[in-house]
């Protein structure tokens, strides 16, 4: 699946490994989750009301349209969450376990 976003520089950063929907995904240190995912995929989530794919909109923490989830069910705003080594992310909501 082709990504929406295209890097134009700053490629000499340390790689950070994530798992998104069970699939390994390599990002770069300093990426937001949104950019890490959208450089390799075309969507972040499905809208709860119409089921359509969404990929965020404002990138500044206002629109709340870039929510993704940790495997523990915690929701994260992808545009303002930096990637971290070993993050396990889901693009579909799961039951919240209350565990971090």
């Amino acid at each position, binding site marked *: 699946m082709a990504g929406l976003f295209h890097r134009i520089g700053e490629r000499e950063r340390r790689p950070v490994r994530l798992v998104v929907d069970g699939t390994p995904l390599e990002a770069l240190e300093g990426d937001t989750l949104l950019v890490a995912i959208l450089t390799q995929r075309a969507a972040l989530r499905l809208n709860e009301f119409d089921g359509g794919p969404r990929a965020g909109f*404002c990138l500044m923490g206002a629109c709340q349209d870039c929510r993704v989830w940790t495997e523990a069910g915690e929701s994260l705003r992808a545009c303002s969450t930096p990637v971290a080594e070993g993050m396990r992310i889901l693009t579909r909501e799961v039951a919240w376990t209350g565990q971090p």
Partner: protein
Amino acid sequence: MDRPAVIVIGAGPAGIRAAARLVQAGLRPVLIEEGGREGGQIYRRQPANFTRPPAALYGADAGRATRLHGDFAALRAQIDWRPETLAWGVTEDGLMLLREGRAEALPWQAMILATGATERVMPVPGWTLPGVYGLGGAQIALKAQAALIGQRPVFLGTGPLLYLVAWQYAKAGADVQAVLDTSPWHLRLRAAPWLAARPGMLARGLRYTADLRRRGVRLAGGVTPLGIEGEGQVAALRWRDAAGREQRTECDAIGLGHGLRSETQLADLLQCDFAFDPVARQWLPVRDADGRSTRTGVYLAGDGALARGADAAEAAGQLAACAALRDLGHPVDELEMTTLRGRLRPMGRFRRGIETAFPWPARLAAGLPDETVICRCESITAGDIRASARALDAPEVNRAKAFIRAGMGRCQGRVCGLAAAEVLAAARGVPVEQVGRLRGAAPVKPLPAATEFAE
């Protein structure tokens, strides 16, 4: 317990200048910032491990950006700096904060709201497709993440940011397919006397447009957007040109925006008075020339009070701090305040020119097809809003919200509120100020389910 704090909310140009002025008077203000670093949106900083120089990030504003960041660095030890902290509610007794999953209430005696602005957007059919971003968002991708929203983008909307972002993308190597302005060209002539208040800014805008033209980018004014096409992501934009001909432009992304809307939720929770600003066609908190709201101890500065841009925000931030200091009994030289008011005057005129040349395209609301999604959060359509206006007889936006949830989603109407009001007003055949404004509610942004509340 310490004495109640003097709090500045937002570490953009207005908030930093306000905090600096309070420190100069011997105070140690609390500076709250939702993001991780200072700078706000326009002087947003890239992550610490990025290496591009300021000139590459901020262009003609590199000097101002560097100065602001440098001044903040010098200030940091003298303030109570709280990054990654969301101010999500406020009462008489305390400002509600959330940091690292913990909520607390901070008692306050004075508060300067420098909460900034977000995109003002008129929806286009298909705008929920992946690949459509706010103009500010497109700029953040480039500036803070060294990434493009697409390689063949179209920029659609109106305002100075439309041309600036298109130009920045072209310069960064994107193959910009078109820059489509909903404002007709002739409005710029009408706006010229006001725009002349800031010749430097005007010249800069003209330079971006000329450079886009020189690069062969298609520019059109007076356009009507018709729809965004694509399967799973943006593939093309259909639009009507000023002569009434239908056009179709293929693209892989769209930057969309029509100027700015102020973030006013906290002023609303504080029960500050609001008034309809006919120039911006928005409800804004009432303030005096120095930034005092109608509520004692609450001050407003920067784009969160009135969108006039970063230079005005710096002056307004310092001026609001002067007003707060004076009200708290600190001596402030009248000359300083007179100078700051004088600096803001041409910026007010320029802003009037910008709103005249690049108006919010309210006229488009009436023409949106019923199936157009207005509320992105909950997929509420123009048709739903029209039904609430007619069949359910909603006289104003809060009633419509109660009936059909327009503006009740996670973003609390930040994205759809202004457009929803226009659709409602058009359906009822009344001026938009008659359908009111969405009232704010705490929490102003979603709190995590796992939030711990302090005793």
